[in-house]
């Protein structure tokens, strides 16, 4: 990847070198953690260490980490798990209109089952306000579920504020989809009233196929995948030991790397200004992750730019990886919820990077964008 500029960290991240180095050693821990013999115990011990590492990365104290088959499943477990466990208490849920499909589709499913879902809309800049979220909470609300960082715009949602305000509603469970937040912005669960927090390993440089759900205290949940009763009975199936170990290590490393990336905001600002000069319209939420920037060149569909950049080794994406399906793209539900017109929404591209990205790589990416944008503009006759 020497000459390649990977700016699609929100889709997935390369496996961290520290993770790769330890892989051989971890692969030797082949026991089934539920087995009672030595090989099993060894795997169980390793798994416990990984769990502690993830707890620490989340700044969590009172609770536990449940490993799942990925971020999608962690979010599914949270949303379905609360809905199934507390349906007797109420059937109303508050969420945002800009959630990832892992939450959004689960909500749509519950809606078909008769749950009532309130979708809180963002403002035109992409920010979701805590007041708006709280305004929708009612006596029969059982769950508030919002993402910490939006995967398309980078908007940071005020989860601490929401958690504080929810103290007035002690029976409402609060779930946060932290898939794009862990390792990108500070997460400190011990000081907040967040009950559930979902994370994904591969976004941090761990393997694909492992996720985690933090579960506060002794919160009761209905499991989504049932069977042998592993993971405190909340997620059955032989644990993905290798995946979990890679998650633990990658999470610790990612958080440390983030903490030492002191000029993160300058790097984002540098890219943002350069794009603006080239005629891009930016999505610029007031509260944003320093590692995601969504921009659109009016008149040029996102895919055209993705391919034009790729020819020079710069990888970005047109929207989220999950929605770029084979059947042609639909305008992003996130941008649509912000009131962005379909033509402009289809022009949107996403740059996403990570704390290890150097200013020189940002500059290099800007050079590619400048040259390729001129080419695309000429080809499409954009002025």
């Amino acid at each position, binding site marked *: 990847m020497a000459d390649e500029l990977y700016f699609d960290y929100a889709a997935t*991240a390369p496996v961290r070198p520290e993770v790769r180095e330890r892989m051989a050693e971890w692969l030797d821990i082949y026991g089934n953690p539920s087995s009672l013999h030595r090989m099993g115990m060894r795997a169980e011990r390793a798994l416990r260490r990984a769990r502690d590492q993830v707890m620490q990365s989340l700044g969590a104290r009172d609770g536990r980490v449940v490993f799942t088959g990925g971020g*999608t499943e962690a979010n599914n477990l949270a949303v379905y798990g609360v809905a199934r466990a507390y349906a007797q208490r109420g059937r109303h849920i508050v969420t945002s209109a800009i959630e990832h499909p892992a939450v959004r589709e689960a909500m749509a499913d519950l809606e078909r089952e008769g749950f009532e879902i309130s979708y809180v809309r963002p403002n035109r800049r992409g920010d979701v306000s805590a007041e708006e979220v709280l305004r929708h909470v009612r006596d029969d609300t059982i769950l508030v579920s919002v993402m910490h960082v939006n995967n398309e715009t980078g908007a940071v949602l005020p989860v601490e504020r929401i958690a504080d305000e929810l103290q007035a509603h002690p029976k409402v469970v609060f779930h946060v989809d932290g898939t794009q937040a862990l390792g990108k912005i500070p997460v400190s669960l011990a000081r907040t009233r967040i009950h559930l927090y979902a994370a994904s390993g591969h976004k941090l440089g761990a393997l*694909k196929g492992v996720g985690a759900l933090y579960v506060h205290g002794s919160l009761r949940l209905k499991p989504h995948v049932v069977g*042998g009763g592993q993971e405190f009975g909340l997620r059955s199936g032989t644990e993905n030991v290798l*995946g979990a170990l890679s998650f633990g290590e990658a999470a610790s490393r990612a958080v440390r790397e983030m903490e030492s990336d002191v000029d993160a905001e300058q790097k984002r600002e540098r890219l943002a200004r350069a794009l603006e000069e080239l005629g891009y319209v930016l999505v610029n939420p007031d509260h944003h992750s320093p590692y995601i920037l969504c921009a659109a060149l009016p008149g040029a569909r996102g895919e055209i730019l993705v391919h034009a950049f790729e020819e020079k080794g710069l990888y970005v994406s047109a929207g989220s990886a*999950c929605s770029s399906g084979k059947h042609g793209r639909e305008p992003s539900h996130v941008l649509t919820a912000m009131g962005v017109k379909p033509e402009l929404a289809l022009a949107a591209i996403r740059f996403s990077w990570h704390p290890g990205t150097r200013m020189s790589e940002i500059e290099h990416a800007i050079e590619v964008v400048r040259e390729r944008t001129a080419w695309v503009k000429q080809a499409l006759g954009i002025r």
Partner: protein
Amino acid sequence: MIYLDNAATTPLLPAVRAAMARYLDDAFGNPSSLHRPGREARQAVEEARRFFADWLGVSPRDLAFTSGGTESNNLALYGAYLAQRDGRNHIVTTAVEHHAVLEAVDRLRLLGADVTVVPVDSDGRVDPDDVVRALRPDTALVSVMLVNNEVGTIEPVAEIARRVRERDPGIVVHSDMVQALPVMRLSLAEMGVHLASFSAHKVHGPKGVGLIYVRSGTPFVSLAAGGQQEHRLRAGTEPVAGIVGFHAAMAELAAHFEDHVARLASLRDAMWERLRSVQGAYRNSPLDSAPSILNVGFRGLRNDRLLMRLDLEGIAASAGAACSAGSLEPSHVLRAMGREAEARESIRLSFAWQNTMEEIEIAAAIMSKIVESMRSRFTNS
């Protein structure tokens, strides 16, 4: 350490590590991404899918990768039941299924499913007549495992599928084939099942990867909600390196399949040949069971003590399924076989690719010695 607990999990084959390396490195992309790293990841996933389609005799479109055997079983049962519950809400399954099936069926019961659990004989075998007798006009789903994970009994799934189809072609037939994949040449189309579940770590692949077969046209709604991955059968970013490892492991087994199965049978037979002469030894696995599993007991000796002694001597075995974290519950399989007393005495020895005849000889000798010493202590005290 002599590892004879391969039905719980298996060590990775060396070729698997090598195959996975590239997908931890340059081809780390998200298979749904349009750019080079994404496309390479996509290609690896599709190659794996084509390999399994070929090996299992089905269309690649009918296969989806999952996070493991348990998830595959859950997806299959929920998926087929929920898709039909307006018209059909009866499920037929057996008393000897894995917990991934039994627990899922229990959950469906809470959602309103009516469940008939078909018994087994003393060999752990289901009688197809019993299955057919259990069918009703509102039967949605029949789920019968192919190879039992505790005793290795091979269930007559093909015959069950055929007879269910003759009775009512609208009934969906699922089979948990997690323990069959390492030891049976499977042709799903011939077997006539609609749904089947598989796991990578039972065939020397990595943990955290499974496979589900959903024949086109089968009523199915996915339990995993989210993106549109895996033909919309299972949402979530695909575990690419794991899938590549699964592919590499199965390809290696497939390349030597007949020899591999024959070798397992000779290991199993050698083990039993040596153990049968030990005082009080008996065998729970039928003679025609899968060659990977030998379930045995020693009259009057508790399996928890025996396993502890074995572990101290460097032999890893188990009392049955590895699940339900840490507890040694008497096996539901042996109890269903009418072996109530044996359920507290029996252990499962399970074999795989890496085991050698030498290991079997050593393990058998150690086991005989332990049993003798436990007996003499018992009679002396």
